[in-house]
């Protein structure tokens, strides 16, 4: 097995456990914003798309990279936007609209 794979597997396992512990503590109250936020964070694949699309490659790789950049970046922008919109709505009693 390639060395890179082993390293990545370490990172994957640790990040998985970390994610599990952190996310388990998110109140069910916020499960919808949680899904929207993780979607936006997952859209970090856009960095890979940018490299593929802007690097000298084949026509196919550049086109696929550009489509991927489009799809991922729309997730990033829309995901952060809707998460913040939802969170702004959550208010405690007695606090009127800002």
């Amino acid at each position, binding site marked *: 097995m390639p060395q890179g794979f082993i390293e990545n597997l370490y990172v994957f396992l640790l990040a998985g456990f970390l994610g599990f512990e952190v996310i388990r503590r998110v109140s069910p109250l916020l499960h919808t914003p949680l*899904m*929207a936020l993780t979607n936006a964070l997952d859209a970090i*694949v856009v960095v890979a798309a*940018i490299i*593929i699309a*802007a690097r000298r490659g084949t026509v196919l790789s550049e086109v696929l990279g550009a489509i991927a950049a489009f*799809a991922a970046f*729309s997730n990033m922008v*829309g995901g952060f936007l809707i998460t913040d919109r939802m969170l702004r709505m959550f208010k405690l009693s007695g606090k009127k609209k800002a």
Partner: protein
Amino acid sequence: MNITALDPGTVQLLTDVAYIVAIAFFVLSLKWLSSPATARRGVLVGEIGAALAVVTTFFNPELVQFQWVLIALFAGAIVGIPLGLVQMTAVPQRTALSHAFGALAAALIGISEYYLHLHELTKFQVVEISMEVIIGSLSFTGSLIAAGKLQEWLPQRPIVYKGQNYVSFTVLGLALLSAVILVFNPTAPFVFPAMVVISLLFGVMLVTPIGGADMPTVIALLNSYVGLTAALLGFVLNSKVLVVAGALDGSSGFILAVVMCKAMNRSFTNVLFGAFGQLQVSAHAQLEDRTVHTATPEEAAAILSAANTVLVVPGYGMAVAQAQHKVREMLDVLLKKGVDVKFGIHPVAGRMPGHMNVLLAEADVPYDRLVEMDAANSEMPQTDVALVIGANDVTNPAAKTDEGSPIYGMPIIEVDHARTVMVIKRSLNPGFAGIDNPLYYEDKTLMLFGDAKAFVSSVVKELTGGGE
């Protein structure tokens, strides 16, 4: 600023540092999401991390042509902004659509990696790319089908036929077989595109048979597939930032899927292959000659204002009737009268995990009035009135008592333990899952027949006018 002035080593170092900072920010972002008080700070930190990573990427010296990328990013923002501004009732289908986009992006990058390095791939890399592309492709079409069902462009009911699971598994088997062929002969003509097409087809076949009531679980599962795809892409590209982001997203989706399954007393296999919602014929039989008690809006208003404690149990029916703003008006009036009103939220209320909380928050219901199922149940015996609005199965006592019921074992909000139960409902027709609810025939239950919005607004009118 001249980018070429920096030597490649420095750029590489800066990129690595930026990505590490981005990852740290992502983890903090999720950590701060744990409570509403810090959650918005979490979003901000996530945004900074993402922006940092994206901007740094542009300094990569290998990048030579920017026009298409910039157009793509611009178009992404143009599409992303309206998708960030949809109504709260449309958030589930928006989420499913964004899963589709995420899966698409990851799958396309995997596909282009395959064709770029076709002749130099090791067996191991072929395995990685194949897994990535298979899961990405099936998550893409699966999420599109889920979005279509939630948007009601596709039928909500499960679409099933005989031997379906065998056919589906055969299709998945063909996709895996293609991957095996590629491992031994990475350049085998047509096998790679065939694998992509078969995986896309499998995604459709995976989600089509699943009914609308199971969509919360399906969305969460697809969420975790999309995260897994991104993590696998990180393996393919040897990019730690993708591995971590994917692992975080994947574990989040997985946790939510487990929460949803527990809330419905189902297993993953049962959700994916059980085709719920077509078996409960037997429950209908004894419907006819039982009596129910009904009440008018005036009577309901009188009972509510005489109560000390009221628990509202909202379901998606409330949102369909657009009644949540009227319900908030009722909350305000009752609070002013000194009635303690809380909302009991079942984990599967709404169409995705946590959806009902967002719908009520949008209607300005303060979140300290929202209680989770277990807390609601422990307060239930001291509750004077439980008011059920647009919810059915999640209050059905048959889930506790009737072993023959299809929802037997599902945790419910035990409104039948409150002193009085009022149910706003259009008619006695069984709900979405087609299961009869014995709650409606109990002596302490009052049925309030009518449209939820109209009924609640008459109650509000009665409370404000008829009060003092």
